[in-house]
């Protein structure tokens, strides 16, 4: 078994979730079953294969003449007036579960 109940607690902690006992037990079962299936990938020798993070990594990868056609390219001209316009303050706060009209309000941050 790859994933133990302890692993589930650790990963839930990383993911900012608590999970109840029933959910944890189910998660141990489900994650193990999925990870067993994912082991299929170990059949492949990928030691000399480059990872692909984005589709643009591969777009026209085997057509040298088209290499100049790139996308997923975040470059743009500078905007003289400064930053691109963002949402007005009041609009940005409209969906806040709790706000004082200026800031988002949250419970106490420092725990002791």
């Amino acid at each position, binding site marked *: 078994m790859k*994933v133990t109940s302890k*692993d*589930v607690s*650790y*990963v*839930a902690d*990383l*993911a*900012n*979730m*608590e*999970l*109840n006992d029933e*959910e944890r037990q*189910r*998660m141990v079962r*489900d*994650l193990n*079953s*999925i*990870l067993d*299936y*994912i*082991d*299929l*990938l170990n059949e*492949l020798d*990928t030691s000399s*294969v*480059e*990872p*692909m*993070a*984005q*589709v*643009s*990594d*591969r*777009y026209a*990868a*085997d057509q040298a003449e088209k290499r100049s*056609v790139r*996308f*997923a*390219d975040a470059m*743009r001209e500078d905007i003289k007036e400064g930053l691109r316009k963002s*949402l007005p303050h009041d*609009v*940005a706060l*409209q*969906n*806040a*579960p*709790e706000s004082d009209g200026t800031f*988002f309000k*949250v*419970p*106490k*941050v420092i*725990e002791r």
Partner: protein
Amino acid sequence: MQDRKITATALAEAFYAKIQKDDPQIGAYLTLSKDRALEQAGRIDQLASRGETLPPLGGVPIGIKDLLSTRGVRTTAGSKILGNYVPPYDCTAVSRLEAAGAILLGKLNCDEFAMGSSNENSAWHPVRNPRDRTRVPGGSSGGSAAAVAADMAVATLGSDTGGSIRQPASFCGVVGLMPTYGRVSRYGLIAFASSLDHIGPLTKTVKDAAIVLRTIAGRDPMDATSADIPVPDYVAEFEKPVHGLKIGVAKEYLGEGLDPEVRNAVEAAIQKLEKLGCKVVEISLPHTKYAIPTYYIIATAEASSNLARFDGVRYGYRAANARTLSEMYRRTRDEGFGAEVKRRIMLGTYALSAGYYDAYYLKAQKVRTLIAGDFEQAFHKVDAIVTPTCPTAAFKLGEKAGDPLAMYLADIYTVTADLAGIPGISIPCGQTRDKLPIGLQILGRHFDEATILRVAHAYEQAVTPGA
């Protein structure tokens, strides 16, 4: 409408009447945007009454998957955690359709954060397949497919990360198009897996899908991954003959696990294409069987990162009475997310965690290269590839709900195109003995939607002339 035989307002009202009558049995819509629809319809009617030329989609009633943001119209992503979320801006694809005159009827049900293949993971209610209400409509864009199939919208938008447009299109007997990665801006699409997410249309005909794609496609400065590559007039391209096109058939898509009735329908469709003058070429996509495990690592890893933003601070649900910030985060996510979303966040977090990153995430990214390479090789030999969209027709509600792995395998023929970033379309190609629709998938080269739409249109016209 241009001839003022019917007004946009009357048409919108007729669709709302149809929704009111039929949707309680289907469950496709989550939110109706009647004020916005009638305001837009009024604008179209004014143009028509002044004798002005209407915009290309003037008065066309559309529905939008609830994963796409709509200003002033509640957008839940099918999740409790966004149950009361009202976006302050529009998704680019939605604003482009409205600018072309389309009328937004409302928001369509989907699996929570697009995670599912049956629409049963919606936090609100499942969608029933209009062709057989005991069966699922597919997912995650189940509401988008069902609304078109049940004539509750002329066209809808869905999103496709592992098959979420094409698989429900296949199950409901409609056309579903996933464009090339980068073809359509995702600005305003609530992110599931950013390197895999696509927006695309679901419609009754291939021509309608082509028209919607042309409207929403093209560079958008608000999405850095949208490509600055010219968008052709897809409908004009239908005039080019399909005669002489080379169509690939991959044995890996016709093997074990494929329902015999689906196989027969797909083989008959391939023969039809041959009759139309296409040259059928046998090809191999040898890494196909690794696609589902690759997908479930990459998609869940990206989802675990994208869904970290739902913490109860800026929008959406917040758990009540938490004493500390940390408790508030945890309880908000525990109470706000459904079981499948939690499962995927956990799997993705695990795959990215210290000690496992190389074994799972990096490994999957490397296998993704091999899968993309299969298609690169194949497209040296052929112009398009034809496969079944799904191994089976629509399954029963509840049939796979308890077994996540069995559910994942419903996407076995669709995930490959998402991983490679190539476009794919699903079109109806007959039905089973139980009258359930079967889907034919056509895959093409990057940014060559024109060819797959042309082949799909030629097939459709040969089977149902005048569609």
